[in-house]
């Protein structure tokens, strides 16, 4: 009996949004999310104090650069574009109970194929069509890259956490090899792909430096959210995620759905790579790996796979990473302190979740 109830409990945590959300529940959720974040800021502040940095100055710089300066906020919003695509891909996978942790490999392969194809297409077709073709190629390549873990999971039951992680190492290496050996721009000495001219990239929004990729990202994550919550296809994926045995019992084609989940998730990661290259970077340098894929996972978890909440957390993550880089430079803190901060948030959040669960258990008993 105890074994039977275990998956139900964890499923509650993952699929909390599908039930009826009363006002009390929402308040509780907000408290359970914001409280730990504040606590984490305090703990991170203590660490900063311990290494001799004024935490208020650090947070001040983060906010100033990431949020309040005109240039900073534009960078922050631009950074959001690929992160939103990645978050959308993770929402699909996590809600279906599949842990696609191979986002970085899929992202980079998408980025490299987009970077390699866009300058070629732009010479033979109108630029809007060229960009669409590059997006599609990036998406398809990332989908193909996810096929190995997808088939293994669907037909052999091999744990996808391990296979996707292994494929991400192979994927990042392959992307590098492609840049250095196949798609290398002969016109430069540094190993990088040919650069897409600025005027051919995705247009910027109004008179700012914000990329229009932001709108694409927002559209992607909202569409994903609506598909997962309002359509039959989304419901099928959620059934597979919440109770795989019920999915079999109900006659759903679980292997086919599994492959579809991996394809969608990886395809969105590939689009994330493409939107970063075609919208912002213009080319891929060798050894470039921003590791967005892993950074987004906490944001998606904090949002509990809810698309709208994920937009908020991705914004927060962008502020932290843009502002954190600047604050780190000015105060002499290592650049990776942003990651330390995010991981403290996660740990505190997990603890809060644990104690909240214990509390509600004891109250029920």
């Amino acid at each position, binding site marked *: 009996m105890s074994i039977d109830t275990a998956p139900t409990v964890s499923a509650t945590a993952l699929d909390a949004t599908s039930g009826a959300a009363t006002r009390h529940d929402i308040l509780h959720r907000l408290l359970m999310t914001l409280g730990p974040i504040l606590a984490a800021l305090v703990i991170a502040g203590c660490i900063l104090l311990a290494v001799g940095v004024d935490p208020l100055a650090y947070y001040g710089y983060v906010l100033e650069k990431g949020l309040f300066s005109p240039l900073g906020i534009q960078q922050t919003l631009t950074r959001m574009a690929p992160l939103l695509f990645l978050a959308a891909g993770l929402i699909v996978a996590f809600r279906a109970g599949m842990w696609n942790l191979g986002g970085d490999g899929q992202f980079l392969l998408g980025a490299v194929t987009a970077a390699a194809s866009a300058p070629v297409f732009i010479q033979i077709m109108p630029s809007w069509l060229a960009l669409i073709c590059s997006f599609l190629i990036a998406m398809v390549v990332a989908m193909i890259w996810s096929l190995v873990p997808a088939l293994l999971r669907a037909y052999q039951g091999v744990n996808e956490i391990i296979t996707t992680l292994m494929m991400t190492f192979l994927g990042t290496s392959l992307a590098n090899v492609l840049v250095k050996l196949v798609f290398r721009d002969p016109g430069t000495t540094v190993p990088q792909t040919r650069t897409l001219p600025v005027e051919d990239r995705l247009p910027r929004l109004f008179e700012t430096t914000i990329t229009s990729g932001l709108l694409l990202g927002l559209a992607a994550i909202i569409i994903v959210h609506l598909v997962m919550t309002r359509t039959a296809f989304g419901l099928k994926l959620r059934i597979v995620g*919440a109770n795989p045995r019920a999915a079999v019992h109900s006659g759903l084609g679980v292997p086919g759905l599994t492959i579809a989940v991996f394809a969608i998730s990886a395809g969105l990661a590939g689009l994330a790579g493409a939107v970063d290259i075609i919208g912002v970077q213009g080319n891929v340098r060798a050894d470039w790996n921003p590791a967005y894929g892993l950074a987004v996972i906490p944001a998606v978890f904090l949002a509990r796979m809810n698309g709208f909440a994920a937009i908020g957390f991705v914004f927060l993550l962008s502020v932290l990473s843009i502002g954190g880089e600047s604050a780190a430079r000015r105060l002499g803190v290592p650049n990776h302190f942003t990651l330390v901060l995010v991981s403290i948030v996660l740990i505190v959040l997990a603890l809060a979740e644990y104690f909240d669960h214990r509390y509600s258990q004891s109250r029920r008993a």
Partner: protein
Amino acid sequence: MSSLSSSSVAERDIVALEGVTKRFPGIVANDGIDLAIRPGEVHVLLGENGAGKSTLIGMLSGLQQPDEGRILVDGKPTPITSPRHALSLGIGTVFQHMMLVPTLTVAENLLLGGPWWQRPRIDELAARVAEITSTLGITVKLHAKVSELSLGEQQQVEILRAMVRNSRLLILDESTSMLTPKGIDELGALMRRLVEQGLAIVFITHKLKEAAAFGDRISVLKLGRKVGEIPPERFRALGEQEIISEIVELMFGKQKDDPEAVERPVRTVRADAAPLLQVADLAVAPTDNAPGLSSISFDIRPGEILGIAGIDGNGQKQLAEALAGQRAATGGSVRLDGVAIETLSVGERRQRGLRYLTDDRLGEGTVGTFPVSINFFLKQVGAAPFWRNGIEQRAEIDRRAAQLVRDYDVRTPSLKTPVARLSGGNIQKVLLARELAEGAKVVIFNKPTYGLDLANTLASRQRIRDTAARGLAVLLISTDLEELLSMCDRIAVIANGALVGTVGNADDARTKVGRLMIGLAA
């Protein structure tokens, strides 16, 4: 009564439970259980699946903590905090599933768990094992690999392991479920010798014959409660048949004046009607933890209820799953209304009117965290009118769900309530509504009243009768013989994955089915 007697002679108990209660979300697994475990006694814990036996063992072996009540060891209240602590108190457990490392030898398995800084003392162990085995009259090959041993031998190793660790109380959890009849007899003899040496044994089983044959004292659990106890004095005074009938009375309530025993309505099944479901030579390969099926054949005509009787775990679930398409068959044919369906998928079989009402209501029948309304349509996701072009039509779903809630009398706070929060009876009503709604031709009910209270049991049985009366073919799988006798037209008996006989439900059906169940010809 037991709490009184146990307090007066508490000093004799190795372990005593007082009012122990354990809850899990949605269920009370153990409810105020008193139990006295004494040296020199085989204490049988008897109950059906889900009666709370495993939870009780979990608490005795330190895996779980009681929510209420206390556990006394040697008369002193002692919280058993971990399996290691249980071992140090002299409580050894042999679990249902083997807990030996198959690639290691017997000796290595016995030495596992020793202090890591010491070299394993094989010689010392061999001497100790020789001492124990000689008094028990068993032989154990210390240097054989566990994977080469039979299941019975592996069990002896597990018992030996508990003995090497100086256990005073040995818990055997469903230990006979994997054994051959000969292995079961050997285990019974071994238990007898162990208690003669002054050990206490708790023997968990759901088989009545074993309880009567091996026990000194029997406690019967039902739905988490202890419903009765047969003390040793009384046990010795009764013959085996009397004990069994007394246990049956404890487990299934009164045999006479039974409110469940409704007079079987006389249905007229037209003998000349073409069968709706025809199964011929159906076979399923056995898996590691489930028996296979071999040459299963039967027909069910419209309006007929065919019962499948048998002791739990003899292939009932495999049969239901093979018919529903959830389990691959290795041979045979299944025809629904004359059309072969054995190669079709689960969804296609449902489309043609085959419905399977699973016994695992929360495990596979529903998605516990999803609202009641969605669970009604779990097997129709994407179908009109509830989805149009793949888009959920919430109003349509809620309208139809509200209607089903009314028609099937589902007691739920709202349509949005997660289905796992409902009681077992109401979850079953959700499943009934889902499977019996329009389009059904053949319905497979697997243990439809298992775990339900009386009112819901009666309501479910009436639904099944109504289903047959509508002209559907019904396959009713149940471990409750009374239920089958009160409802079926014919009863087939399943044993070890094969149908060993079919009898018409006439006056002598009870004895005939009983004889088939224990392996005699009807």
